[in-house]
């Protein structure tokens, strides 16, 4: 039987240990093969890494079986989880030396005109007005943690690393950043700059 013909949720929940074992091993192979394709050509990823990622992913998928809603193929859903496991780990290794103090200090500099010069988006009046309003909004509308998290994202620090540094959860940190964007948008609106103005300026 090919993997596309397997009723994965049923097979992975099988009460017969042998039957379940076959499904578990088959899924691990599917995940590992997918990761090999996705990460092909990426430096520093060995076959041993792929095995570790696949094993960790398998456990994550089994733990979340009840969340599979059948809106996609099971293997597509499981591959998405495997990619999240692998990329999270790879990003963490790259940024493991960043400290909370450095992130918070960097965030505080976001209000400094030297950090965001008035003409950074161009010297025309509309864009200069937008940048000045944005800097004021960052200074007056955000908390220090929101500034730090936003700058961390701009520095391309992995979101999971930011979450860990802030001692938060993924959901809470995403909400904090979402609230920060909404607060900035509101401040810009109060300064006479609407979402439509932004979309027009950047052809969104």
């Amino acid at each position, binding site marked *: 039987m090919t993997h596309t013909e397997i009723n994965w949720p049923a097979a992975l929940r099988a009460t017969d240990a042998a039957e379940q074992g076959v499904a578990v091993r088959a899924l691990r192979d599917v995940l590992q093969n997918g990761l090999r394709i996705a990460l092909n050509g990426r430096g520093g990823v060995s076959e041993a890494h792929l095995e570790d990622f696949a094993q960790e992913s398998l456990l994550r998928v089994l733990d979340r079986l009840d969340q599979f809603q059948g*809106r996609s*193929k099971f293997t597509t859903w499981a*591959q998405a989880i495997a990619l999240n496991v692998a990329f999270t780990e790879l990003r963490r290794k790259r940024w493991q030396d960043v400290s909370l103090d450095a992130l918070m200090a960097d965030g505080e500099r976001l209000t400094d005109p030297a950090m965001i010069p008035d003409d950074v988006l161009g010297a025309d009046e509309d864009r200069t007005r937008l940048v000045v309003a944005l800097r004021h909004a960052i200074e007056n509308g955000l908390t220090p943690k929101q500034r730090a998290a936003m700058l961390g994202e701009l520095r391309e620090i992995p979101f999971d690393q930011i979450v860990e540094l802030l001692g938060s959860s993924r959901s809470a940190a995403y909400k904090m950043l979402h609230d920060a964007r909404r607060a900035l*948008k509101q401040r810009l609106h109060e300064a006479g700059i609407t979402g439509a103005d932004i979309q027009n300026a950047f052809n969104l």
Partner: protein
Amino acid sequence: MKPEDQRLSSEQVGSIVKMLGLTRDREFNCSECLQHVGEFAECQLTGKPVDEVIASVEQHLALCPECREEFEALLKILKSE
């Protein structure tokens, strides 16, 4: 880090502004995106119409570079099948 390295680039400031332009009152977070990104990827490859849930995935991917990186990797796998 040198002061000149700390300064944000026009791309970085532009990305803040663009994110504000895309911000909605109700959005998927990364976990919600992960739950549905497979369906979005399959829609992309088959041309199946997107519903409200899948549109929320698309909006999240426009805002989140990490989820977008994982989505592009998923497409790579699905295209190889």
